[in-house]
């Protein structure tokens, strides 16, 4: 099922917007996580509730839309979802990022509550964990971006069979 060109451009626009926005939102998350870790007082108390808002209102919707639109885009073009290794690895990285993100939302909620309750100093390891996971998220998303741009070679067996079948049906 290959989408018409007009739809493909629309889906591509949505995918680039959501995925680049995802990277930017995680960068903002990381900045807040660093600010919350290295400072104390009002700035740290403000950082974690802000992180909670950025996470739930921006990062989670962008992560979900990146995944859904990416899958739609791949099955709607000749690239397919499992025809090329770079597409499979990019899908795996996005799924990993989304899974880790959803696990981290509990910690983000907890830190926001702790900031409002004035008990942030009891959560040093969690605050460091936010910086660690934010950095890891940026790295994973940048790798996915590089794969999208360079599209390294490599076709799967399934891809070769599918394309051979398409060729046979076309002739």
């Amino acid at each position, binding site marked *: 099922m290959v989408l018409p060109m007009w739809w493909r451009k629309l889906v591509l626009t949505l995918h680039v917007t959501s995925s680049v926005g995802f990277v930017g939102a995680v960068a903002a998350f990381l900045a807040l996580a660093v600010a919350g870790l290295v400072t104390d007082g009002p700035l740290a108390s403000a950082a974690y509730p802000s992180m909670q808002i950025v996470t739930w209102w921006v990062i989670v919707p962008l992560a979900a839309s990146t995944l859904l639109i990416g899958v739609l885009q791949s099955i709607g073009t*000749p*690239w397919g979802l499992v025809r090329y290794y770079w597409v499979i690895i990019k899908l795996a990285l996005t799924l990993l990022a989304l899974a880790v993100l959803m696990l981290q939302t509990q*910690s983000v909620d907890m830190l926001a509550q702790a900031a409002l309750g004035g008990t942030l100093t009891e959560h040093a*390891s969690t605050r460091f964990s936010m910086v660690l996971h934010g950095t890891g998220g940026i790295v994973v998303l940048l790798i996915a971006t590089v794969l999208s741009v360079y599209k*390294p*070679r490599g*076709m799967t067996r399934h891809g*070769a069979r599918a*394309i051979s079948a398409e*060729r046979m049906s076309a002739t």
Partner: protein
Amino acid sequence: MPLRMKLVDTYCLDIETECLDKYGHRLRGDETMTVTKNKAGEMPRWVKVFIGIGVAALAVVAFAVLSGHGPWQHMGMGGMH
């Protein structure tokens, strides 16, 4: 070596649909070679490197979880130390 001889083994010449990129543009020259140089089903080296890094990362996470540094350590009472 004539260009046709160089490209004859690639999937682009062999299979028409391989010549399209994700935007529907036809690939040419180096671009075609980059996408289609390997034989079908043969896993490229870069994929093996990625898989190796992934397995190593999983091993580190498994070790962390088994040694009591799992994600739950940062939640609830686990974060109180």
